[in-house]
């Protein structure tokens, strides 16, 4: 009767203890275990940052603690997975400790369950059979704790920003009164303001409830001051222990700073070295936007007239020059991506114009939006934020050949790109099975294989580890020196600094504020 006995709104949270003894897990259909022989003790109320290279099993451990491991893997397939040793919360199996742990994942869209704010917070408490009156008391308290109490309970959850969605997820977890809070890269998809929003809300809630925290995140500086212990995992094997390092943040960072940086972890105060620009890139004008108004929505038809959508941003003028970097910055909702997609000929301008100069268009017409798809990719390449959206074939090599084949060109550039972006070993792999960094490198390579003169990137460094980040920045600086124009939408100050060039800052408009 765990739920009924602590049903009161004011009942204190009991921090949970975690014990792992020789624990291992192999996902269904994989030959290697994701975690092997893990020994770990986390005392009640401890706050642990979990680090390690990709493939070290950090997410697997979090999912196991949340009691959601085993039924289906990420591709939705059921299968025969394998568990060894023991992993316990308060001395019991996580699956039998429903509600003792709450999990927040990376993608804000899938952290929301219901359509109305209050209902979504109540969802977990309902599932734990908390009495109705106690649920609403908990909902109000949780919304207050995460700083969303100014919104009405029937506020539509779809109208929240990414940072607000993650805070809502935290409220939903808090309403369950868990003794263990598990965060799996909770801020990887958020802009800098959203990151701080979520981090601060987590800090406040921990101070109040005293719950145990385990967070996985490779931006160490965000969480360093909030945690009191860092545990570094390494990919499991028979000879090495699963835990590589374990101790207070300052000690672990002092001892293993270089090793962590080499493994791609963002240790505080460390900006990976990137290639310097060789030229200043004041090249020919390729593409210009004049008084541009942009929106993702299409014109609506009403009473036989076409009504243009309300633009998210208007009055944008910008120039794209060969060998020059243009960085588009600004707050969330300012229409940065929408502008970039319009500039790239993928969205029709709502007002104003995008015009390609003769150097770029080479007979294809002035407005990139009117170009055929194969004309477009040979001139302007666009790399989307989510690499998976752009995969069109079943293996890495076909993926790279796709553009050149379409254009009836040779494949000489493909080998060079494979080599340069370290994809040679992966030519037969299915693009969907690659790691996050590999997917990013592949998506850049596939677009470049068509040899465009302008490259447009939407948040290329989101959620990337320091190694992929440095590779990408260096590679783009080479491209720039070779005369390609690079337009990137980014919140990443270090990234824009590495590329140089000019910055276009978009502000919010009234259309966004209303």
């Amino acid at each position, binding site marked *: 009767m765990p739920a009924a006995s602590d049903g009161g709104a004011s009942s204190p949270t009991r921090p949970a203890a975690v014990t792992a003894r020789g624990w291992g897990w192999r996902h269904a259909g994989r030959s290697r275990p994701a975690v092997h022989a893990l020994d770990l003790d986390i005392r009640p109320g401890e706050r642990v940052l979990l680090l390690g290279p990709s493939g070290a099993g950090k997410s697997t451990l979090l999912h196991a603690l949340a009691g959601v491991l085993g039924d289906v893997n990420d591709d939705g397939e059921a299968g025969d997975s394998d568990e060894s040793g023991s992993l316990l919360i308060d001395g019991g199996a996580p699956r039998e400790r429903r509600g003792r742990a709450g999990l927040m994942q990376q993608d804000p869209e*899938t952290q929301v369950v219901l*359509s109305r704010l209050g209902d979504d917070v109540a969802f977990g408490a309902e599932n734990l059979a908390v009495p109705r009156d106690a649920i609403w008391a908990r909902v109000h308290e949780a919304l207050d704790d995460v700083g969303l109490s100014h919104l009405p309970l029937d506020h539509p959850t779809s109208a929240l920003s990414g940072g607000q969605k993650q805070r809502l997820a935290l409220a939903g977890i808090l309403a369950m009164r868990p003794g263990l809070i598990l965060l799996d890269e909770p801020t990887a998809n958020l802009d800098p303001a959203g990151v701080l929003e979520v981090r601060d809300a987590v800090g406040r809630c921990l101070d109040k409830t005293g719950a145990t925290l385990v967070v996985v995140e490779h931006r160490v500086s965000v969480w360093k001051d909030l945690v009191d212990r860092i545990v570094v995992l390494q990919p499991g094997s028979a000879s090495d222990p699963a835990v590589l390092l374990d101790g207070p943040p300052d000690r672990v960072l002092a001892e293993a700073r270089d090793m962590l940086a080499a493994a791609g972890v963002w240790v505080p105060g460390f900006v990976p070295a990137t290639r310097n620009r060789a030229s200043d890139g004041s090249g020919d004008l390729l593409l210009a936007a004049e008084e541009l108004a942009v929106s993702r929505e299409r014109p609506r038809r009403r009473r036989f007239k076409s009504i243009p959508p309300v633009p998210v941003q208007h009055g944008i003028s910008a120039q794209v020059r060969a060998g020059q970097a243009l960085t588009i910055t600004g707050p969330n909702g300012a229409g940065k991506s929408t502008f970039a997609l319009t500039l790239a000929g993928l969205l029709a301008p709502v007002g104003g114009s995008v015009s390609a100069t003769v150097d770029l268009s080479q007979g294809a017409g002035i407005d990139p939006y009117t170009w055929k798809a194969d004309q477009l990719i040979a001139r302007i390449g666009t790399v989307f934020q989510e690499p998976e959206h*752009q995969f069109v074939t079943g293996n890495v090599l076909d993926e790279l050949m796709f553009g050149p084949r379409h254009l009836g060109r040779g494949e000489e550039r493909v080998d060079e790109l494979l080599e340069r972006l370290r994809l040679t070993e992966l030519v037969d792999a299915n693009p969907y099975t690659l790691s996050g960094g590999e997917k990013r490198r592949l998506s850049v390579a596939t677009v470049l294989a068509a040899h465009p003169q302008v490259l447009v990137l939407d948040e290329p460094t989101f959620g990337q580890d320091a190694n992929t980040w440095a590779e990408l920045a260096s590679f783009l600086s080479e491209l720039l020196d070779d005369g390609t124009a690079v337009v990137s939408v980014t919140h990443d100050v270090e990234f824009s600094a590495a590329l140089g060039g000019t910055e276009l800052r978009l502000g919010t408009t009234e259309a966004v504020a209303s």
Partner: protein
Amino acid sequence: MRQELTLRGNQALLTRANPLSKFAAVVFMTVVLALSIDWVSASVALACELLLFPLAGLTLTLLWQRGWPLILAAAVGGWSTSILAPDSGRILLDVGIWSMSEGSLELGMGFMLRGLAIALPAVLLMSCTDPTDLADALAQKARLSHRFVLGTLAAMRLVGLMAEEWQTIGMARRARGVGSRGTPLQRVKATLGQSFGLLVQAIRRASRLAVTMEARGFGGGDRTWARESTYSRLDVWVLAGGSLMAMAAVGAAVFAGTWSFVGG
């Protein structure tokens, strides 16, 4: 662009009725109208339904936005019935194999009015019913499995997201050289590829959402409900209103002598 699964400020009276009683009233109307093909019962029912618009917070503009496929289907059905049905009475229009007579026009009108009268209650129901409230009523009052009901409700939220994702994937594929413009065959191929991309993303999203729900304790045995689904006096009125409208439609048709039972 993203559809919100809430009523967006609709404060009309019928939003406060229990979804199940509204559903029952809709079933009464629909069943009765399906029994006969005459224009009197259909027009009476249609008139009653139009009177209900303000109570459901529905306007003609909203009706057209949400129900235009149904309205078009009714109009097309009525038109084709009037020109294709066996002629009787005076011939009004004769163009080759198509002819319209008084009898066939009456049949066609009856068909169109009935189509509208059957479709409108469903539009009325949806316009004054919040999906979350409907789910609550189905699980708490109709005793449907809460796993099924809440799973469906959560999945419906993803449908709106998928509409956005469809557009993004379309652009992302154009940026790879897959044209959505071109010959019909090329377009079909492009649409198939785009659908596959969307399917992959939908499955990933759905499995992540399932993890979120499971991690919040969903799928266990007993659960409580933060929102209690209740019946009130209003629901008596809704049921009575539904039955009265159905009876009025039948009564008027019998009185006018136009009632023609479908089975007979």
